């Protein structure tokens, strides 16, 4: 009998997603009513709950999907099913400990890792166990890896490194030099994102090759070219987050040069656009395919945005505004989440071949998700533009006056945030129930 650990990971991930969206809505409500429950659940308390939960959704769903693909689809014998179970238990207990850490204000950490720093130890142990299981399993079973195996392996290794790097501030060598410390903090965050992108984008290539039944998608030279481009950006492209930090200029020159290589990705998307849209293969995995199509659209929109503000002259005006939030939400929801939902639909179809993914309500949820996300994203872009205007053009008025002038965009952001939440609930509920059914004894 196959291990149920992948399904547990996926259920855990989906729970984190819904909790994360709930915390996000609660937190964003304070943009509309700043004094609403601010002593009981201040924004500063809700934000770590939100951020940690939604990041957990991405990494847990990616982890569960990879375990699933290896064991259920490729039918490899896992090097150690016991390690996978321990991995899950460690992450589950650490997740609970992190929530306690936030609830009781043990938040000595920093943005994105606000929990008490000792909790990074079990998280790292979990990733190392995943790495051992992953590499040992593949080493035994596969010769000549397709690109997604490289991407997953890279994601796991760099995840370990950058989680460590994000905690270098605990050492005085880094901490006492503010600029160095701050830039390494943001270096690690940029590469942390790059690491989970390796896992998630690897999943998208895996799904494409399976849905199209074309292994060439993952073995051709172009796929490897983009893998190496992504890896180079993961390693050296982080500093566009810190263009305005007084680091040594060469660090920023390197980041500028590396970031600009991503124009190649944009060119490739435009070049392949027509071809990929025409190849609609509805019969096999309709919803998995639709989610991948919407990923295409969101990659297109977000890469234009990211490329533009990787140019220092544009970054100068967008940095420190909601345009950055539009980028991070656009990529985590529009790209990562659509790929992961595509994976979930693919997986549920593997478990229950008769599971009808193309239901009317799921389709409606899918459409309303994309529409809500579009207006959510636009609201943030406009709010960011107005904030930038206040910072660099008008330069008049108090911060609070500028914030008050943004309330209509915050209302729109909040309403479409609810739209995303409800849409994803509609889409995810049948999958969640199917997974629950699977783990019943």
């Amino acid at each position, binding site marked *: 009998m196959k291990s149920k650990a992948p399904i547990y990971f996926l259920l855990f991930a989906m729970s984190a997603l819904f909790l994360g969206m709930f915390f996000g809505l609660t937190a964003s409500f*304070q943009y509309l009513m*700043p*004094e609403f429950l*601010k*002593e009981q659940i*201040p*924004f*500063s*308390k809700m*934000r*770590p709950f939100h951020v940690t939960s939604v990041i957990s959704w991405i990494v847990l769903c990616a982890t569960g999907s990879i375990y699933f693909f290896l064991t259920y689809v490729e039918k490899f014998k896992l090097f150690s099913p016991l390690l996978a179970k321990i991995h899950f238990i460690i992450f589950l207990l650490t997740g609970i400990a992190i929530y306690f850490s936030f609830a009781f204000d043990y*938040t*000595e*950490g*920093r*943005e994105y890792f*606000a929990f008490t720093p000792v909790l990074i130890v079990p998280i790292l142990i979990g990733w190392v166990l995943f790495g051992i299981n992953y590499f040992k399993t593949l080493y035994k079973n*596969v*010769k*000549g*890896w*397709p690109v997604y195996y490289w991407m997953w392996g890279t994601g796991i290794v760099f995840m370990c490194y950058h989680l460590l790097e994000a905690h*270098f501030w605990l050492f005085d060598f880094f*901490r*006492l*030099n*503010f*600029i*160095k410390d701050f*830039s*390494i903090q*943001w*270096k690690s965050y940029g590469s942390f994102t790059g690491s989970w992108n390796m896992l998630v984008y690897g999943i998208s290539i895996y799904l494409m090759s399976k849905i199209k039944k074309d*292994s060439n998608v993952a073995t051709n030279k172009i796929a490897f070219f983009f893998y*190496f481009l992504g*890896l*180079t950006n993961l*390693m*050296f492209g982080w500093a566009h987050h*810190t*263009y*305005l*930090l*007084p*680091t*040594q*200029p060469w*660090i920023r020159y390197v980041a*500028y040069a590396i970031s600009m290589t991503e124009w190649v990705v944009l060119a490739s998307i435009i070049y392949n656009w027509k071809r990929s849209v025409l190849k609609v293969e509805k019969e096999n995995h309709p919803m998995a395919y639709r989610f991948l199509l919407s990923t295409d659209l969101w990659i297109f929109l977000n890469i234009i945005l990211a490329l533009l503000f990787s140019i*220092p*002259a*544009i*970054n*100068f005006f967008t*940095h*420190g505004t909601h345009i950055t*939030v539009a980028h991070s939400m656009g990529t985590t929801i529009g790209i990562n989440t659509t790929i992961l939902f595509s994976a979930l639909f693919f997986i549920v179809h593997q478990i229950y071949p008769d599971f009808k993914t193309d239901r009317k309500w799921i389709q409606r949820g899918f459409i309303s998700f994309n529409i809500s996300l579009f207006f959510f994203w636009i609201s943030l872009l406009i709010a960011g533009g107005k*904030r930038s205007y206040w910072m*660099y053009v008008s330069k008049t008025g108090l911060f*609070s006056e500028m914030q008050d002038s943004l309330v209509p965009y915050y209302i729109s952001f909040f309403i479409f945030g609810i739209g995303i939440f409800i849409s994803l609930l509609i889409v995810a509920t049948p999958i969640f129930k199917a997974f629950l059914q699977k783990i019943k004894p």
Partner: protein
Amino acid sequence: MSTNSRPYIFAIAILLAIFGFYNYVVYNTDGYVAVEKLSPMAVKGQQLFQNNRCWSCHQLYGLGGYLGPDLTNVYSAEGKGPTYIKAFLNSGVKSMPQFTFSEEEKNELVEYFKQVDETGIYPNYDAEIEATGWVKLKYRNETSEH
């Protein structure tokens, strides 16, 4: 269909070697402007900034949350400064929770903001934007980038 992994392993090994060297240099490179290391008092202030999740709403160099203003130069900004910072800390205005920092803690936070302020300027209104897309920052105590 399998691939020939050797060239890829070779390319990854080269990238990793460059990455190792790059990290070594980055970790041993100080900021562009020489400033004092954070004092023990400023480190305590920084820890208070973290423990109370001030970064959730506030930014330093534009990095952090967007519910509150950027605090990079709150120490030296016109009309602001130590007294202003201390008055704000326990005020509980708008969405800011009502903190109960002691006088000692307020001094530690002020010391942290003072040392952050010495490192640079944000927003960097006097930066020069070049036709190449590059931005020449204006540094503390300098007129332009070398």
